[in-house]
Protein backbone atom coordinates (compact mmCIF):
# COMPACT_ATOMS: atom_id res chain seq x y z
CA UNK A 1 0.00 0.00 0.00
CA UNK A 2 1.16 3.46 -0.88
CA UNK A 3 1.38 5.34 2.44
CA UNK A 4 1.49 9.15 2.32
CA UNK A 5 4.38 10.93 3.99
CA UNK A 6 3.23 14.56 4.34
CA UNK A 7 0.44 16.24 6.34
CA UNK A 8 -1.50 17.20 3.23
CA UNK A 9 -0.83 13.80 1.78
CA UNK A 10 -2.51 12.22 4.82
CA UNK A 11 -5.38 14.67 4.71
CA UNK A 12 -6.18 13.88 1.10
CA UNK A 13 -5.64 10.18 1.75
CA UNK A 14 -8.12 10.20 4.63
CA UNK A 15 -10.59 12.31 2.65
CA UNK A 16 -10.32 9.88 -0.21
CA UNK A 17 -10.89 6.84 1.97
CA UNK A 18 -13.28 8.27 4.51
CA UNK A 19 -14.86 11.25 2.73
CA UNK A 20 -18.09 9.33 2.31
CA UNK A 21 -18.11 8.34 5.98
CA UNK A 22 -17.32 11.89 7.14
CA UNK A 23 -20.17 13.20 5.01
CA UNK A 24 -22.48 10.66 6.57
CA UNK A 25 -21.27 11.63 10.05
CA UNK A 26 -21.86 15.29 9.20
CA UNK A 27 -25.39 14.42 8.18
CA UNK A 28 -26.07 12.59 11.44
CA UNK A 29 -24.55 15.41 13.50
CA UNK A 30 -26.70 18.01 11.72
CA UNK A 31 -29.80 15.85 12.02
CA UNK A 32 -29.33 15.29 15.75
CA UNK A 33 -28.44 18.94 16.42
CA UNK A 34 -31.29 20.36 14.33
CA UNK A 35 -34.09 18.07 15.52
CA UNK A 36 -32.70 18.20 19.06
CA UNK A 37 -32.75 22.01 19.02
CA UNK A 38 -36.23 22.21 17.51
CA UNK A 39 -37.74 19.60 19.83
CA UNK A 40 -35.85 21.14 22.74
CA UNK A 41 -37.33 24.51 21.78
CA UNK A 42 -40.84 23.04 21.77
CA UNK A 43 -40.25 21.39 25.16
CA UNK A 44 -38.81 24.62 26.55
CA UNK A 45 -41.74 26.62 25.19
CA UNK A 46 -44.32 24.36 26.82
CA UNK A 47 -42.42 24.30 30.11
CA UNK A 48 -42.03 28.08 30.09
CA UNK A 49 -45.72 28.68 29.29
CA UNK A 50 -46.85 26.33 32.05
CA UNK A 51 -44.48 27.99 34.49
CA UNK A 52 -46.00 31.42 33.73
CA UNK A 53 -49.62 30.32 34.28
CA UNK A 54 -50.79 32.31 37.32
CA UNK A 55 -51.87 30.26 40.35
CA UNK A 56 -55.65 30.01 40.71
CA UNK A 57 -57.40 31.87 43.50
CA UNK A 58 -58.96 30.12 46.44
CA UNK A 59 -57.98 27.59 49.07
CA UNK A 60 -54.70 25.67 48.98
CA UNK A 61 -56.11 22.52 47.37
CA UNK A 62 -57.03 24.45 44.22
CA UNK A 63 -53.47 25.69 43.93
CA UNK A 64 -51.93 22.30 44.66
CA UNK A 65 -52.10 20.63 41.20
CA UNK A 66 -50.39 23.54 39.45
CA UNK A 67 -47.86 23.90 42.25
CA UNK A 68 -47.02 20.23 41.89
CA UNK A 69 -46.54 20.60 38.13
CA UNK A 70 -44.33 23.65 38.71
CA UNK A 71 -42.28 21.64 41.20
CA UNK A 72 -41.80 18.73 38.78
CA UNK A 73 -40.77 21.10 36.00
CA UNK A 74 -38.21 22.67 38.31
CA UNK A 75 -36.83 19.23 39.11
CA UNK A 76 -36.58 18.47 35.37
CA UNK A 77 -34.69 21.70 34.70
CA UNK A 78 -32.34 21.30 37.64
CA UNK A 79 -31.52 17.67 36.86
CA UNK A 80 -30.86 18.12 33.16
CA UNK A 81 -28.95 21.38 33.51
CA UNK A 82 -27.04 20.02 36.47
CA UNK A 83 -25.57 16.86 34.92
CA UNK A 84 -23.34 16.50 31.84
CA UNK A 85 -25.00 15.31 28.64
CA UNK A 86 -22.41 12.58 28.28
CA UNK A 87 -23.53 11.13 31.62
CA UNK A 88 -27.21 11.61 30.72
CA UNK A 89 -26.66 9.62 27.50
CA UNK A 90 -25.19 6.70 29.42
CA UNK A 91 -27.88 6.72 32.10
CA UNK A 92 -30.79 7.08 29.68
CA UNK A 93 -29.49 4.68 27.04
CA UNK A 94 -28.31 1.88 29.28
CA UNK A 95 -31.11 2.55 31.74
CA UNK A 96 -33.78 2.01 29.11
CA UNK A 97 -31.92 -1.08 27.97
CA UNK A 98 -31.93 -2.44 31.52
CA UNK A 99 -35.67 -1.96 31.99
CA UNK A 100 -36.23 -3.52 28.57
CA UNK A 101 -37.41 -0.41 26.73
CA UNK A 102 -34.85 -1.00 23.97
CA UNK A 103 -32.82 -4.05 23.02
CA UNK A 104 -29.12 -4.33 22.35
CA UNK A 105 -28.65 -3.63 18.67
CA UNK A 106 -31.61 -1.28 18.14
CA UNK A 107 -30.63 1.92 16.30
CA UNK A 108 -29.25 4.58 18.65
CA UNK A 109 -30.38 7.57 16.55
CA UNK A 110 -33.85 7.96 18.15
CA UNK A 111 -32.30 7.65 21.61
CA UNK A 112 -29.66 10.24 20.67
CA UNK A 113 -32.27 12.72 19.43
CA UNK A 114 -34.31 12.17 22.58
CA UNK A 115 -31.32 12.83 24.82
CA UNK A 116 -30.33 16.03 23.02
CA UNK A 117 -33.96 17.25 22.99
CA UNK A 118 -34.55 16.72 26.69
CA UNK A 119 -31.22 18.29 27.55
CA UNK A 120 -31.81 21.29 25.29
CA UNK A 121 -35.37 21.62 26.59
CA UNK A 122 -34.10 22.25 30.11
CA UNK A 123 -31.90 25.13 28.91
CA UNK A 124 -34.54 26.44 26.51
CA UNK A 125 -37.13 26.60 29.31
CA UNK A 126 -34.92 29.08 31.15
CA UNK A 127 -34.00 30.98 27.97
CA UNK A 128 -37.67 31.32 27.00
CA UNK A 129 -38.60 32.35 30.54
CA UNK A 130 -36.01 35.10 30.17
CA UNK A 131 -37.56 36.05 26.82
CA UNK A 132 -41.03 36.27 28.34
CA UNK A 133 -39.73 38.49 31.14
CA UNK A 134 -38.05 40.71 28.53
CA UNK A 135 -41.44 41.61 27.00
CA UNK A 136 -42.91 44.55 28.88
CA UNK A 137 -45.66 43.16 31.10
CA UNK A 138 -47.89 46.09 30.19
CA UNK A 139 -48.55 44.39 26.85
CA UNK A 140 -49.82 41.29 28.62
CA UNK A 141 -52.03 43.54 30.76
CA UNK A 142 -53.32 45.34 27.67
CA UNK A 143 -54.19 41.99 26.09
CA UNK A 144 -55.99 40.95 29.28
CA UNK A 145 -57.76 44.29 29.40
CA UNK A 146 -59.35 43.78 25.97
CA UNK A 147 -60.54 40.35 27.06
CA UNK A 148 -57.86 37.99 25.75
CA UNK A 149 -57.10 34.85 27.74
CA UNK A 150 -53.66 34.03 29.16
CA UNK A 151 -53.13 31.61 26.30
CA UNK A 152 -54.23 34.08 23.56
CA UNK A 153 -52.07 36.83 25.02
CA UNK A 154 -49.10 34.48 25.15
CA UNK A 155 -49.50 33.15 21.61
CA UNK A 156 -50.32 36.41 19.82
CA UNK A 157 -48.48 39.05 21.81
CA UNK A 158 -45.86 37.87 24.29
CA UNK A 159 -44.24 34.81 22.72
CA UNK A 160 -43.60 36.22 19.23
CA UNK A 161 -41.65 39.06 20.84
CA UNK A 162 -40.03 36.79 23.41
CA UNK A 163 -38.82 34.42 20.69
CA UNK A 164 -37.46 37.31 18.65
CA UNK A 165 -35.55 38.57 21.67
CA UNK A 166 -33.99 35.18 22.41
CA UNK A 167 -32.99 34.31 18.83
CA UNK A 168 -29.30 34.87 19.66
CA UNK A 169 -29.56 32.40 22.56
CA UNK A 170 -31.41 29.87 20.42
CA UNK A 171 -28.57 30.19 17.92
CA UNK A 172 -26.14 29.50 20.76
CA UNK A 173 -28.01 26.35 21.70
CA UNK A 174 -27.96 25.15 18.10
CA UNK A 175 -24.21 25.70 17.82
CA UNK A 176 -23.64 24.01 21.18
CA UNK A 177 -25.72 21.05 20.01
CA UNK A 178 -23.72 20.69 16.79
CA UNK A 179 -20.56 20.45 18.86
CA UNK A 180 -21.84 18.62 21.93
CA UNK A 181 -23.67 15.93 20.00
CA UNK A 182 -20.12 14.54 19.71
CA UNK A 183 -20.49 13.15 23.24
CA UNK A 184 -23.09 10.75 21.86
CA UNK A 185 -20.18 8.69 20.49
CA UNK A 186 -20.26 7.03 23.93
CA UNK A 187 -23.46 5.28 22.90
CA UNK A 188 -21.89 4.53 19.49
CA UNK A 189 -23.87 7.06 17.46
CA UNK A 190 -22.02 7.35 14.15
CA UNK A 191 -21.92 11.14 14.18
CA UNK A 192 -19.04 13.26 12.95
CA UNK A 193 -16.66 12.83 15.90
CA UNK A 194 -17.29 9.07 15.90
CA UNK A 195 -16.39 8.77 12.21
CA UNK A 196 -13.24 10.81 12.84
CA UNK A 197 -12.27 8.46 15.63
CA UNK A 198 -12.73 5.41 13.38
CA UNK A 199 -10.68 6.95 10.59
CA UNK A 200 -7.92 8.08 12.95
CA UNK A 201 -7.70 4.74 14.75
CA UNK A 202 -7.30 2.68 11.59
CA UNK A 203 -4.05 4.41 10.60
CA UNK A 204 -3.01 5.96 13.87
CA UNK A 205 -3.20 9.45 12.25
CA UNK A 206 -5.08 11.33 14.97
CA UNK A 207 -3.92 14.84 14.17
CA UNK A 208 -4.72 14.69 10.47
CA UNK A 209 -8.10 13.02 10.95
CA UNK A 210 -9.26 15.40 13.65
CA UNK A 211 -7.93 18.38 11.75
CA UNK A 212 -10.36 17.47 8.98
CA UNK A 213 -13.16 16.90 11.51
CA UNK A 214 -12.45 20.28 13.16
CA UNK A 215 -12.70 22.02 9.79
CA UNK A 216 -16.05 20.37 9.08
CA UNK A 217 -17.40 21.41 12.53
CA UNK A 218 -16.26 24.97 11.93
CA UNK A 219 -17.92 25.13 8.51
CA UNK A 220 -21.15 23.78 10.05
CA UNK A 221 -21.28 26.19 12.98
CA UNK A 222 -20.25 29.18 10.88
CA UNK A 223 -22.93 28.59 8.25
CA UNK A 224 -25.53 28.02 10.95
CA UNK A 225 -24.78 31.31 12.71
CA UNK A 226 -24.96 33.17 9.37
CA UNK A 227 -28.28 31.55 8.50
CA UNK A 228 -29.71 32.43 11.91
CA UNK A 229 -28.60 36.04 11.47
CA UNK A 230 -30.57 36.12 8.21
CA UNK A 231 -33.59 34.64 9.96
CA UNK A 232 -33.39 37.34 12.64
CA UNK A 233 -33.37 40.04 9.97
CA UNK A 234 -36.45 38.48 8.44
CA UNK A 235 -38.21 38.39 11.82
CA UNK A 236 -37.56 42.09 12.35
CA UNK A 237 -39.79 42.80 9.37
CA UNK A 238 -39.60 45.69 6.98
CA UNK A 239 -37.80 48.80 8.12
CA UNK A 240 -40.09 51.00 6.03
CA UNK A 241 -43.80 51.66 6.28
CA UNK A 242 -46.40 53.52 4.28
CA UNK A 243 -48.47 56.49 5.37
CA UNK A 244 -51.77 56.47 3.51
CA UNK A 245 -53.62 59.58 2.37
CA UNK A 246 -52.98 63.26 2.89
CA UNK A 247 -55.17 66.26 3.59
CA UNK A 248 -55.49 67.12 -0.08
CA UNK A 249 -55.54 63.66 -1.61
CA UNK A 250 -56.88 60.66 0.26
CA UNK A 251 -55.39 58.22 -2.23
CA UNK A 252 -51.82 59.38 -2.00
CA UNK A 253 -49.28 57.51 0.03
CA UNK A 254 -45.75 58.10 1.26
CA UNK A 255 -43.29 55.41 2.19
CA UNK A 256 -41.10 56.22 5.14
CA UNK A 257 -37.80 54.42 5.18
CA UNK A 258 -36.24 54.44 8.62
CA UNK A 259 -32.85 53.31 7.40
CA UNK A 260 -32.49 56.44 5.27
CA UNK A 261 -34.07 58.73 7.82
Amino acid sequence: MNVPSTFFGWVSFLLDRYGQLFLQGTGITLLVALTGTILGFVIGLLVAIVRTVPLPKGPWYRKLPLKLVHFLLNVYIEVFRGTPMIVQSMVIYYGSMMIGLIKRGTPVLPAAILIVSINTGAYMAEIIRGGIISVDKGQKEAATAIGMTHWQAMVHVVLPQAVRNIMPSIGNEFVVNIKDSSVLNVISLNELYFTGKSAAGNYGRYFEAFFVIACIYLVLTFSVTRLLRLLERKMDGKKNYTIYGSQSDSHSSITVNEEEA
Partner: protein
Amino acid sequence: MEKILEIQHLEKHFGDHVVLKDISFSVEKGDVICIIGSSGSGKSTLLRCINFLEEPTGGEILYHGKNAETACKRTIYNSKVGMVFQSFNLFGNHTVLENCMLGQMQVLKASRADAEKRALTYLQRVGMDAYRAARPAQLSGGQKQRVAIARALCMEPEVLLFDEPTSALDPEMVGEVLNVMQDLASAGMTMLIVTHEMSFARDVASRVLFMDGGVIVEDAPPQQLFSQPKQPRTQEFLKRVLARQL
Protein backbone atom coordinates in the same frame (compact mmCIF):
# COMPACT_ATOMS: atom_id res chain seq x y z
CA MET B 1 -80.15 56.77 33.95
CA GLU B 2 -78.99 53.21 33.53
CA LYS B 3 -76.25 52.18 35.93
CA ILE B 4 -73.49 50.28 34.16
CA LEU B 5 -71.14 49.80 37.08
CA GLU B 6 -71.73 49.97 40.82
CA ILE B 7 -68.67 49.81 43.00
CA GLN B 8 -69.68 48.72 46.50
CA HIS B 9 -67.41 48.87 49.53
CA LEU B 10 -64.38 47.99 47.42
CA GLU B 11 -61.22 47.23 49.39
CA LYS B 12 -57.72 46.46 48.26
CA HIS B 13 -54.68 45.77 50.33
CA PHE B 14 -51.25 44.46 49.37
CA GLY B 15 -50.24 42.50 52.46
CA ASP B 16 -50.63 44.89 55.37
CA HIS B 17 -50.61 47.93 53.14
CA VAL B 18 -54.16 49.19 52.64
CA VAL B 19 -54.56 50.97 49.30
CA LEU B 20 -58.34 51.23 48.94
CA LYS B 21 -60.78 51.55 51.81
CA ASP B 22 -64.53 51.16 51.41
CA ILE B 23 -64.86 52.71 47.95
CA SER B 24 -68.43 53.09 46.72
CA PHE B 25 -69.78 54.93 43.70
CA SER B 26 -71.66 54.14 40.56
CA VAL B 27 -71.12 54.82 36.89
CA GLU B 28 -74.13 55.65 34.78
CA LYS B 29 -74.37 55.53 31.02
CA GLY B 30 -72.82 58.67 29.53
CA ASP B 31 -70.96 59.65 32.69
CA VAL B 32 -67.54 61.19 32.29
CA ILE B 33 -65.95 60.78 35.69
CA CYS B 34 -62.53 62.20 36.40
CA ILE B 35 -60.64 60.85 39.39
CA ILE B 36 -58.10 63.25 40.81
CA GLY B 37 -55.77 63.12 43.77
CA SER B 38 -52.12 63.00 44.65
CA SER B 39 -49.83 60.12 43.73
CA GLY B 40 -50.30 57.12 45.97
CA SER B 41 -53.89 57.99 46.79
CA GLY B 42 -55.10 54.77 45.13
CA LYS B 43 -56.54 56.21 41.90
CA SER B 44 -54.78 53.83 39.54
CA THR B 45 -55.33 50.84 41.80
CA LEU B 46 -59.04 51.63 41.84
CA LEU B 47 -59.13 51.62 38.05
CA ARG B 48 -57.12 48.41 37.88
CA CYS B 49 -59.47 46.75 40.37
CA ILE B 50 -62.48 47.70 38.28
CA ASN B 51 -61.30 45.56 35.37
CA PHE B 52 -59.63 43.00 37.66
CA LEU B 53 -56.04 43.62 36.61
CA GLU B 54 -55.74 43.71 40.38
CA GLU B 55 -57.95 41.40 42.39
CA PRO B 56 -59.99 43.40 44.92
CA THR B 57 -59.65 42.02 48.44
CA GLY B 58 -63.10 43.07 49.55
CA GLY B 59 -66.39 44.52 48.41
CA GLU B 60 -68.20 43.96 45.17
CA ILE B 61 -68.44 45.34 41.66
CA LEU B 62 -71.87 45.17 40.04
CA TYR B 63 -72.14 45.15 36.26
CA HIS B 64 -75.69 46.00 35.17
CA GLY B 65 -76.82 45.09 38.66
CA LYS B 66 -75.12 41.70 38.79
CA ASN B 67 -71.85 40.67 40.39
CA ALA B 68 -69.21 41.26 37.74
CA GLU B 69 -67.20 38.22 38.79
CA THR B 70 -70.03 35.76 38.39
CA ALA B 71 -72.44 37.43 35.95
CA CYS B 72 -70.34 36.78 32.86
CA LYS B 73 -66.99 35.43 31.80
CA ARG B 74 -64.03 37.56 32.79
CA THR B 75 -62.94 37.93 29.16
CA ILE B 76 -66.36 39.23 28.09
CA TYR B 77 -66.48 41.64 31.02
CA ASN B 78 -62.98 42.89 30.17
CA SER B 79 -63.94 43.48 26.55
CA LYS B 80 -66.91 45.58 27.72
CA VAL B 81 -64.85 47.58 30.21
CA GLY B 82 -61.95 48.85 28.11
CA MET B 83 -58.74 50.34 29.40
CA VAL B 84 -56.23 52.88 28.14
CA PHE B 85 -52.87 52.83 29.90
CA GLN B 86 -50.39 55.50 30.85
CA SER B 87 -47.65 53.68 28.93
CA PHE B 88 -49.86 52.87 25.87
CA ASN B 89 -48.91 49.16 25.93
CA LEU B 90 -49.40 48.67 22.20
CA PHE B 91 -48.50 45.21 20.93
CA GLY B 92 -44.97 45.69 19.61
CA ASN B 93 -45.08 42.79 17.19
CA HIS B 94 -48.16 44.05 15.33
CA THR B 95 -48.87 46.99 13.06
CA VAL B 96 -51.27 49.76 14.08
CA LEU B 97 -54.07 48.10 12.13
CA GLU B 98 -53.37 44.66 13.61
CA ASN B 99 -53.29 46.14 17.11
CA CYS B 100 -56.89 47.21 16.55
CA MET B 101 -57.93 43.91 14.95
CA LEU B 102 -56.43 41.33 17.31
CA GLY B 103 -58.93 41.67 20.14
CA GLN B 104 -61.91 41.72 17.78
CA MET B 105 -60.78 38.52 16.11
CA GLN B 106 -59.64 36.68 19.23
CA VAL B 107 -62.25 37.77 21.75
CA LEU B 108 -65.28 38.82 19.70
CA LYS B 109 -64.53 36.21 17.00
CA ALA B 110 -65.04 38.81 14.28
CA SER B 111 -64.01 37.92 10.72
CA ARG B 112 -60.80 39.47 9.40
CA ALA B 113 -62.75 41.69 6.96
CA ASP B 114 -65.14 42.98 9.63
CA ALA B 115 -62.32 43.53 12.10
CA GLU B 116 -60.35 45.51 9.54
CA LYS B 117 -63.35 47.64 8.62
CA ARG B 118 -64.12 48.49 12.21
CA ALA B 119 -60.45 49.07 13.01
CA LEU B 120 -60.17 51.58 10.18
CA THR B 121 -63.34 53.35 11.33
CA TYR B 122 -61.96 53.92 14.81
CA LEU B 123 -58.45 54.70 13.60
CA GLN B 124 -60.02 57.39 11.45
CA ARG B 125 -61.89 58.70 14.46
CA VAL B 126 -58.64 59.22 16.37
CA GLY B 127 -56.93 60.51 13.22
CA MET B 128 -54.49 57.61 12.91
CA ASP B 129 -55.82 55.73 9.88
CA ALA B 130 -52.98 57.03 7.72
CA TYR B 131 -50.53 55.17 9.94
CA ARG B 132 -52.29 51.83 9.76
CA ALA B 133 -49.19 50.07 8.36
CA ALA B 134 -46.72 51.49 10.89
CA ARG B 135 -45.42 49.62 13.89
CA PRO B 136 -45.75 51.07 17.40
CA ALA B 137 -41.99 51.72 17.63
CA GLN B 138 -42.31 54.05 14.65
CA LEU B 139 -44.87 56.36 16.29
CA SER B 140 -44.66 59.29 18.69
CA GLY B 141 -46.14 59.03 22.18
CA GLY B 142 -49.29 60.96 21.30
CA GLN B 143 -49.83 58.85 18.20
CA LYS B 144 -49.35 55.67 20.21
CA GLN B 145 -51.93 56.76 22.77
CA ARG B 146 -54.45 57.61 20.03
CA VAL B 147 -53.95 54.12 18.56
CA ALA B 148 -54.37 52.63 22.04
CA ILE B 149 -57.69 54.49 22.35
CA ALA B 150 -58.78 53.18 18.94
CA ARG B 151 -57.77 49.67 19.98
CA ALA B 152 -59.98 49.94 23.07
CA LEU B 153 -62.88 51.41 21.06
CA CYS B 154 -62.73 48.54 18.58
CA MET B 155 -64.08 46.24 21.28
CA GLU B 156 -67.15 48.55 21.44
CA PRO B 157 -66.89 48.84 25.22
CA GLU B 158 -69.62 50.22 27.44
CA VAL B 159 -67.12 51.97 29.67
CA LEU B 160 -63.60 53.11 28.97
CA LEU B 161 -61.12 53.40 31.81
CA PHE B 162 -58.23 55.82 31.29
CA ASP B 163 -55.24 55.42 33.61
CA GLU B 164 -53.35 58.74 33.42
CA PRO B 165 -53.47 58.69 29.62
CA THR B 166 -51.37 61.82 29.15
CA SER B 167 -48.86 61.50 31.98
CA ALA B 168 -46.18 59.83 29.86
CA LEU B 169 -46.48 62.36 27.02
CA ASP B 170 -44.43 65.38 26.06
CA PRO B 171 -46.42 68.54 26.84
CA GLU B 172 -46.98 69.28 23.14
CA MET B 173 -48.62 65.88 22.58
CA VAL B 174 -51.00 66.07 25.52
CA GLY B 175 -53.44 68.21 23.52
CA GLU B 176 -53.98 65.76 20.66
CA VAL B 177 -54.89 62.96 23.11
CA LEU B 178 -57.15 65.17 25.24
CA ASN B 179 -58.93 66.33 22.07
CA VAL B 180 -59.70 62.75 21.12
CA MET B 181 -61.00 62.10 24.64
CA GLN B 182 -63.12 65.25 24.56
CA ASP B 183 -64.66 64.13 21.25
CA LEU B 184 -65.48 60.76 22.78
CA ALA B 185 -67.07 62.46 25.78
CA SER B 186 -69.29 64.63 23.62
CA ALA B 187 -70.27 61.57 21.58
CA GLY B 188 -71.67 60.09 24.78
CA MET B 189 -68.98 57.57 25.64
CA THR B 190 -68.99 56.52 29.29
CA MET B 191 -65.54 57.20 30.68
CA LEU B 192 -63.68 56.90 33.95
CA ILE B 193 -60.49 58.94 33.81
CA VAL B 194 -57.64 59.10 36.28
CA THR B 195 -55.87 62.34 35.44
CA HIS B 196 -53.68 65.18 36.59
CA GLU B 197 -55.11 67.47 33.88
CA MET B 198 -57.28 69.71 36.06
CA SER B 199 -58.53 71.91 33.25
CA PHE B 200 -59.65 68.85 31.31
CA ALA B 201 -61.47 67.54 34.38
CA ARG B 202 -63.12 70.92 34.92
CA ASP B 203 -64.24 71.31 31.30
CA VAL B 204 -65.16 67.77 30.27
CA ALA B 205 -66.11 65.77 33.34
CA SER B 206 -69.69 65.33 34.45
CA ARG B 207 -68.42 64.35 37.89
CA VAL B 208 -65.12 64.59 39.67
CA LEU B 209 -63.98 62.24 42.42
CA PHE B 210 -61.22 63.43 44.71
CA MET B 211 -59.30 60.60 46.31
CA ASP B 212 -56.88 60.75 49.20
CA GLY B 213 -55.41 57.97 51.33
CA GLY B 214 -57.44 55.26 49.62
CA VAL B 215 -60.86 56.81 50.14
CA ILE B 216 -63.11 59.02 48.03
CA VAL B 217 -63.04 62.29 49.91
CA GLU B 218 -65.38 64.21 47.66
CA ASP B 219 -67.65 63.31 44.75
CA ALA B 220 -69.22 66.31 43.02
CA PRO B 221 -69.83 67.99 39.66
CA PRO B 222 -66.69 69.82 38.49
CA GLN B 223 -68.10 73.37 38.91
CA GLN B 224 -68.81 72.64 42.53
CA LEU B 225 -65.67 70.66 43.30
CA PHE B 226 -63.29 73.15 41.71
CA SER B 227 -64.94 76.36 42.88
CA GLN B 228 -66.46 75.39 46.24
CA PRO B 229 -64.80 72.24 47.53
CA LYS B 230 -66.45 71.17 50.77
CA GLN B 231 -63.73 69.09 52.33
CA PRO B 232 -60.60 70.71 53.76
CA ARG B 233 -58.41 67.99 52.16
CA THR B 234 -59.86 68.77 48.73
CA GLN B 235 -59.31 72.49 49.26
CA GLU B 236 -55.71 71.91 50.23
CA PHE B 237 -55.04 69.64 47.23
CA LEU B 238 -56.63 72.03 44.77
CA LYS B 239 -54.75 74.98 46.20
CA ARG B 240 -51.46 73.17 45.60
CA VAL B 241 -52.31 71.90 42.14
CA LEU B 242 -54.31 74.75 40.62
CA ALA B 243 -51.65 77.26 41.49
CA ARG B 244 -49.51 75.55 38.85
CA GLN B 245 -52.03 74.44 36.27
CA LEU B 246 -54.88 76.78 35.55
